[in-house]
């Protein structure tokens, strides 16, 4: 592979420097979209147009965007409940994502899942999952699936699953069983710890052993691991891309300690007494969006001020359109939807009180 494109201003050549500049501009756009989307999500939550538990991704944008940029469109992705960023980075429309949180029939789960349950079958997003750690054995299962497809059915290719988890999920038994299985069966899944330093109000040091070197956990299962600065999307690409390519080739599991930070509270009701404003500000200084924008505007000079401003306007408009769409979309009608999607084969007498039926087809399908 040649790495001959615009060399970085600082000299040292990085893998991401070899990419066409549209790709990096695309990352900037994706990260900005997530940020803007989440700001509007918070506002809508405060106006009670979104309910339930809602966890925003502000601060962590680079992690989903940077890692998803390293895999193929057909590779499975599965994550936890802080999932709007993964959904958008994977290609879900802002409309379907916002409509889901508004509980609308046009949402990605027809309003049945809400913020924590972003599913997108066409984009191979196998869900946001609300129970901490629940997605980690599923990640092993998805990898088992495509390895089987490739090796036994001989209909597939070498794929790679991305399975995201929070640092709090390190302490669930499910992850440890899953990592052992992945190591044992040689399953091509990468466990990406979005290590934002806290699970709710518990700092990682108070919640897990070996917090200073999480790679020890992977070592116990014979799983290769790396640690990456998750506040720099180019750094993520530079480090994650070769790691992922190698694991795909060898069909082996991996583990990534991706150091990131959430700027907002854990959920929409969190007084955040467990950390200082200075700590938040310290991370905001290293903001991944500002960093990439600075790089493209001032170092690489592949983005003009005018295009940058236009991009920001376009994104604002895109999210405005999504909000309007969500607002104007129909609610699911209990008469037709409450008893739909429960069974694939709704036979009689499955329930003493319910008659199951089929409702509308998922708008994403």
């Amino acid at each position, binding site marked *: 592979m040649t790495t001959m494109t615009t060399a970085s201003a600082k000299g040292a050549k990085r893998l991401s420097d070899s990419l066409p500049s549209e790709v990096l501009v695309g990352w900037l756009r994706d990260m900005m979209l997530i940020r803007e989307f989440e700001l509007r999500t918070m506002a809508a939550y405060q106006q009670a147009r979104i*309910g*339930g*538990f809602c966890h925003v991704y502000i601060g962590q944008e680079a992690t989903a965007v940077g890692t998803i940029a390293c895999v193929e469109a057909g590779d499975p992705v599965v994550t936890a409940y802080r999932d709007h960023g993964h959904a958008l980075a994977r290609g879900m429309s802002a409309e379907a994502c916002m409509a889901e949180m508004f*509980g*609308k029939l046009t949402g990605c*789960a027809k*309003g*049945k*899942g*809400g913020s*924590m*349950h972003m599913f997108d079958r066409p984009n191979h997003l196998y869900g946001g*999952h*609300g*129970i*901490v*750690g*629940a997605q980690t054995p599923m990640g092993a299962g998805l990898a088992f699936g495509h390895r089987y497809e490739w090796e036994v059915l001989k209909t597939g290719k070498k794929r790679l699953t991305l399975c995201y988890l929070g640092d*709090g*999920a390190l*302490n*669930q*038994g*499910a992850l440890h069983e899953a990592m052992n299985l992945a190591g044992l069966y040689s399953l091509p899944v990468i466990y990406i710890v979005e290590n934002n330093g806290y*699970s*709710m*109000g*518990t700092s990682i040091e*108070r*919640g*897990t052993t070996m917090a200073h070197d999480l790679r020890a956990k992977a070592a116990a299962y014979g799983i290769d691991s790396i640690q990456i600065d998750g506040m720099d999307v180019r750094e993520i690409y530079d480090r994650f891309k070769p790691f992922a390519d190698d694991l795909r080739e060898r069909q082996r599991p991996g583990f990534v300690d991706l150091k990131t930070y959430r700027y907002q509270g854990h959920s929409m009701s969190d007084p955040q*007494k*467990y950390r200082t404003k200075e700590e938040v500000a310290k991370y905001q200084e290293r903001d991944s969006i500002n960093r990439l924008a600075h790089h493209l505007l001032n170092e690489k000079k592949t983005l003009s001020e005018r295009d940058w401003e236009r991009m920001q306007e376009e994104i604002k408009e895109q999210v405005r359109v999504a909000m309007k769409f969500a607002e104007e979309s129909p*609610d*699911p009608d*209990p008469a037709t*939807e*409450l*008893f739909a999607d*429960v069974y694939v084969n709704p036979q009689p007498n499955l*329930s*003493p*009180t*319910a008659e199951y039926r089929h409702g509308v087809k998922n708008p994403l399908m």
Partner: protein
Amino acid sequence: MTTTLSTIDTPLHPAVDGVSLPEFLAEEDLPSREGPRVIQFREALREAMSEEMRRDKRIFLMGEEVAQYSGAYKVSQGMLEEFGEKRIVDSPISENGFAGLAVGAAMYGLRPIIEFMSWSFSLVAADQILNNVPKMLYMSGGQWGCPVVFRGNDGAGGQLGSTHSWCVEALYSNVPGLKMAIPSCPYDAKGLLKTAIRDPDPVFFLESERMLGDKAHVPEEEYYIPFGRAARLREGDACTIVSFGRPVNFCLEAWDELAKEGIECDVLDMRTIRPLDIGAVVRSVQKTGRVVVVDQSWPFGSVASEVVTQVCEKAFDWLDHQPLRVNSDDVPAPYAKGLEQAFLPHKGKIVAAVKRAVG
């Protein structure tokens, strides 16, 4: 070798040491339910735990965010300051781990209170809480009991979707060896939780996120509500309404509406469903001839099914209408507001069921 076999002749099994049951008063001798000391449900829970922890140093509280964060729902606020970090213990998100830890600690002689942020999350600890906790006394042939109180939010919390809205009462009460209490108001929350902590058997104590802010008079003095004694909250001859936990409040709303039309019912709050005060239900049904059971679990194999079965077994001849039940709809809990409202038991469904029964 010869073995002498003797029979246990004490009311309490000797497998659990250091048990002192409180004195239980008749309902009319308990402190008044009315009064000026209006506090929240969560404070009533906190008082119950704190009073018992002052009495018995073996008791500790463990769970996610219970200490430094003051509890995810502020139930344990201030307890870290009073009891210290050895007794109010923050845990990582490891329900299977800390539920199992409680089993070992209880067998060794301590009295754990385990807070599940939500009973929904207890499912990842199912092996410990269903396989070990209720069976320890039996499978050790009477050598070890397992006096643990597991407590936390149960049922729909408001658009939390299908994994976070579990009503575990039907599922878990199927297992012999455990006791289950489900208070509907602050007064009962305190009195029942104190009893749960004193009880030498494992107790599953089900609260509701939606009720933690409910306010009512709670006496400052100590009082214990015995397990297995229902409270009759309203009186009437038309029908018997049986419920427990949060839906009791919907039954009271339904009572008001029905009363306007001259339909007056008995409303029985079971308060514990294992033990179940079926005697109170039967006595009421002997008067009314009709019964509606309101239960927020799914209908199939629910607590309501159990109550209805026992009514048929024990009061069949007094029934003038087949027993009816109001459950959540038989589907996973949906997220969308309108779907969730349609899904849960509410006043309208209870009124309709009672009218059908008396109709």
